[in-house]
């Protein structure tokens, strides 16, 4: 059984649909890239899985449970973590508080120690308000916060956007370690090549629909993929 199964999900915020029937699945421990042009509905897809899209129809099954009837906070409880693209930390809270705030974590103190061990930069600045962190530190904190609840699936919305090149590498390295922590990841990425390189499979969205899907190596070699991005370059 798949970890996440999305079938015919459609919906949006205002009157018009942004998602127009998307099918997608993620197996346990798998990294899946979702790419596509701006406005294709990538962020909306992630938010819909998280339960943050007001109008949403279709079927979303996670770990055998129907998600659409659950509140976002309850989806966290059954093993979904979420790192939004912007505003992904509580700026007014200290680094430590950003981690402590997560509810329903068994052995929280130990888990926080784990996280600080894993992200030494955060450990150093644990009493600093999160809004004072650099872009890279913020991203790490957002990861750490999402990982606190030991998610089985991590939803990542363009985690490398606007990061400096060496940080981009770090973030991808970090994502690559997730399966080792028995977490699957759904990754939205603009840097499709780097992202697919660490992914098992990928989906390409356009106008709220899946236009291309397949195993990551295949997609990387697919000339349609290159054309979509570089006009046959």
């Amino acid at each position, binding site marked *: 059984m798949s970890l996440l199964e999305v079938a015919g999900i459609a919906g949006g915020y205002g009157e*018009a649909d942004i998602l127009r029937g998307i099918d997608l699945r993620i197996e346990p421990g798998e990294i899946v890239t979702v790419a596509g*042009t701006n406005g294709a509905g990538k962020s909306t897809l992630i938010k819909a899985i998280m339960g943050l899209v007001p109008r949403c129809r279709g079927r979303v099954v996670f770990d055998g449970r129907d998600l659409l009837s659950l509140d976002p906070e309850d989806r966290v409880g059954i093993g979904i973590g979420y790192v939004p693209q912007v505003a992904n930390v509580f700026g007014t809270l200290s680094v430590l508080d950003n981690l402590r705030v997560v509810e329903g974590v068994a052995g929280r103190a130990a888990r926080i120690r784990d996280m600080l061990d894993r992200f030494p930069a955060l450990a150093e600045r644990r009493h600093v308000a999160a*809004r004072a962190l*650099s872009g890279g530190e913020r991203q790490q904190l957002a990861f750490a916060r999402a990982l606190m609840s030991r998610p089985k699936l991590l939803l990542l919305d363009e985690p490398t956007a*606007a990061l400096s090149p060496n940080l*981009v590498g770090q973030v991808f390295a970090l994502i690559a370690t997730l399966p080792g922590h028995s977490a699957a990841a759904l990754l939205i990425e603009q*840097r499709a*090549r780097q*992202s697919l390189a660490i992914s098992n499979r990928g989906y390409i969205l356009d106008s709220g629909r899946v236009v291309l899907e397949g195993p990551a190596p295949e997609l990387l070699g697919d000339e349609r993929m290159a054309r979509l991005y570089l006009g046959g370059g």
Partner: protein
Amino acid sequence: MSLGVHGVNKSFGGLRVVDDVSFQVQAAELTGLIGPNGAGKSTLFAVISGFQPADAGCVRFDGHEIQRLSAAARARLGIARTFQVPRPFAHLTVRENLLTGARDQPGEHVFNLLCRPGVVRQRERQIVARADAMLEFLGLTRVAGERAGALSGGQQKLLELGRALMTEPRFILLDEPYAGVNPVLIEEIERRIRTLSEQGTGFLIVEHNLPALARLAARLLVMDRGRLIASGTPAQVLADRAVQEAYIGGGP
């Protein structure tokens, strides 16, 4: 006539989104601006159109420094822009959206409304005629009376283009005009842009649909992580190794 940015910097909360960018765009030379997400293209648009103040540097239009002008004043000067995610007036009809874009409607001042109703009516007739022609061109005539919020994303993109054109701009900043628009219409829009460009309207276009942009643009600018990393003809730019790196990401 030209539009230029000189040494523009813009940061958000310690993150430098636009990093010392300078370039000059001639009206006669249709220009595309490309780069991966987060490269700072939209922020640069916001700085040029007056929606964000630059931290440093200046913006020149037609030889004048304009960075002190409000967004509305820049639009009146002839710099029109569209938004990446369409922002129609959701509760107005499609036609009303276009009417709102028209310039020189004295009826938008209460004094004229009460004291010169004839002038207002006459101008309104002209504007409606222009709007209807615009609807025709955009293929939106069928939905002219519908509320703009009910349109599909692609239709909203078109509407927004039309609204910008209604301001009779001399220079247009288009933020992803093709996103969500069907291919037939893309060619249609392309033709129109080319016509306008030939008539002397300047264009700076951000677009991810590179084939379409490459057909249209005489020149491409490439941004990555806030910096301008390349510029030249489409063929030159797309062959550039650094550009490919920035776009799809380098190999492992």
